[in-house]
């Protein structure tokens, strides 16, 4: 942690965002799985063009919270979400909100790379196709190429876009999944431990990519690795036993945590 050197920059950066309204804002979010409560009154603001890392020990509710943001929890029968989550002044749990539309705005990358067992091209083109984002073959080709380029995969796969996506290596598959997510032009990208199944080199590649993507998207990433959170994120939120313990600038969380539990977790005493 190069705290001393970056203090000035880090202090300057949040200042620009505090004026702008948060991209995503969660208030009093409680989640229940049947009778068991998994999240307790979570309040969290996520700002545009920043990477927000959600950290915490296993079972702390960070993934549950992430999946609330694009309503993936809807698919679990026993799951119930209370509270308000607002994206750009729109309550995403309001009655009139269409989940399909919401998920076109809030993309997701999963823990295990899960490309469709189709060609690389079809993987990336699937989202634009179902949402009708491309008016013709040429435009679709463009979207696929741009997305693969942004995901840093284009040079590796441009000659074999017709081959199955499942034939790629783990790291390439995960970048393919990222390309697939950004092809829909979402505003927010949720990443659920995107590197936990990858080796360190592939992980480094994805982390670089996340940093580049920040310019265009708002990114929320769940991670088990505190080093990763420190490397890629600007904001960090620490969850413990379903409670949002502390949130703030990544720098501050890792250097001067306010809460004892955060302190204990980042120094490795609990977790």
């Amino acid at each position, binding site marked *: 942690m190069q705290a001393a050197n970056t203090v000035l920059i880090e202090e300057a950066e949040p200042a620009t965002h505090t004026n702008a309204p948060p991209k995503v804002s969660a208030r009093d979010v409680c989640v229940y799985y049947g009778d068991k409560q998994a999240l307790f009154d979570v309040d969290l603001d996520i700002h545009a063009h920043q990477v927000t890392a959600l950290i915490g020990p296993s079972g702390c509710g960070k993934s549950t919270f992430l999946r609330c943001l*694009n309503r*993936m929890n809807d*698919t679990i*029968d026993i799951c119930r979400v209370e509270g308000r989550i607002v994206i750009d002044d729109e309550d995403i749990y309001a009655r009139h909100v269409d989940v*399909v*539309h*919401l*998920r*076109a705005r809030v*993309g*997701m*990358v*999963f823990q*295990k790379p*899960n*490309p*469709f*067992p189709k060609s690389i091209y079809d993987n990336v083109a*699937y*989202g634009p196709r*179902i*949402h009708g984002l491309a008016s013709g073959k040429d435009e679709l080709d463009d979207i696929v190429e741009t997305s693969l380029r942004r995901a840093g995969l284009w040079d590796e796969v441009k000659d074999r876009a017709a081959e*199955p996506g*499942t034939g790629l290596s783990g790291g390439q598959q995960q970048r393919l*999944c990222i390309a*697939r*997510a950004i092809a*829909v032009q979402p505003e927010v990208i949720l990443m659920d431990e995107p590197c936990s199944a990858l080796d360190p080199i592939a992980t480094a590649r994805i982390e670089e990519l996340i940093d580049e993507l920040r310019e265009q998207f708002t990114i929320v990433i769940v991670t088990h690795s505190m080093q990763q959170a420190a490397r890629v994120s600007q904001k960090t939120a620490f969850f413990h036993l379903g409670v949002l313990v502390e949130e703030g600038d990544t720098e501050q969380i890792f250097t001067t945590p306010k809460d004892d539990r955060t302190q204990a977790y980042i120094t490795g005493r609990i977790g």
Partner: protein
Amino acid sequence: MTSETLPDSGTIRDRNSDKSALVKAGLKRRYAAERRFRAYGVAGILFGLGCILLLFYTIGSNAIPAFTQTMLRLDITLDPQDIDPDAISTANYRKIVRQPVRALFPEVTSRRDKRALAAMLSPGAAYAVRQMVIDDPSLIGKRISILVPLSDDIDQLNKGAIKASSDETERRVSNKQIAWFERLQDFGLVETVFNTTLFTAGDSREPELAGIWGAVVGSFFTMIVTLALAFPIGVASAVYLEEFAPKNKWTQVIEVNINNLAAVPSIVFGLLGLAVYINFFGLPRSAPLVGGMVLALMTLPTIIIAGRAALKAVPPSIRDAARGLGASPLQVTTHHVLPLAMPGILTGTIIGMAQALGETAPLLMIGMVAFIVDIPGGVTDPATVMPVQIYLWSDAPERAFVERTSAAIAVLLGFLILMNTLAVFLRKKFERKW
């Protein structure tokens, strides 16, 4: 192993060597048990294989004679006096085919012997000549050479199933007929040819004229109806139950009932078909339409159960990926889940269809057991199916039907093996490609 269980436990090394001896003693027993288990397994498999080989051997050896037919070559003069060119189809062809045979045996004069001589020819001989003349009326007035079938008894005599050495009262061929047949053989007029009738004709009371084509076509129409009903309904039910239905006690009740349905004896479905389709809705009796509808009921649970298993086997991560991109529930299913589950569903469907193809009992209830000579032309024509044809032939008194029964079984088994091979092939080809 602790010191308490070992008497005289001294140093750790002592205890260890004791333990190792104990383990060694036990190892022998464990390996022996393993070898015994393997031996039981191998014995079981060998027994199964032996049974299958025996089945194939008996059916095959019984069926082989059915693939040939004993024919007689006749030179027939189509006299315009016998055949009125204006009424070709009504001429007396029986007389026309008998004349050249009688000409070969001028010494046969008594009425009784003449009839016995004529009986050596199959009734099919006259039909064959008639068909030939109808096809080409210009033959009238000419002399033709034609192969006509001999009767089933002579055919069996030729194939050795009826032995000339046996007592005359115990066989359906008289000594005189045997003598005549031997003379025909001496003339070089008897030929044994491939039995095309077996594969092109419908059923007949005369074994030498009976074929399985009518039953094959009947089975085909029945299977088409079954597939057209059971596949879409079964897949739709499986998809709804697996992907869309809420998991509550109603869906549980439905699930239990579908599993129960799979265990219902097939004849019960036949009774249901008789009561509902024929008596209530007034659909035609003996028709592949009704047969197919009954078999569809029977096949549905198989397809639904196999379909649900196949859908369940699609990894949830694929569903998540599609949902995460904003695919609607129907798109998730039709674009991703269903195509991935399709090989499994098809395997289940083929196995279900193979069961339906071999089913007899429910079809007896709805009248598909009738004696039907004509080849069915559609799903509402009276028809029978292969297993029912086998059942009918196995019941027939003529010796020649024994080999035809086996031949029909061989054909049915051929279709079943083909279908199951296809199922295995599909399963292997598309196995887990994610």
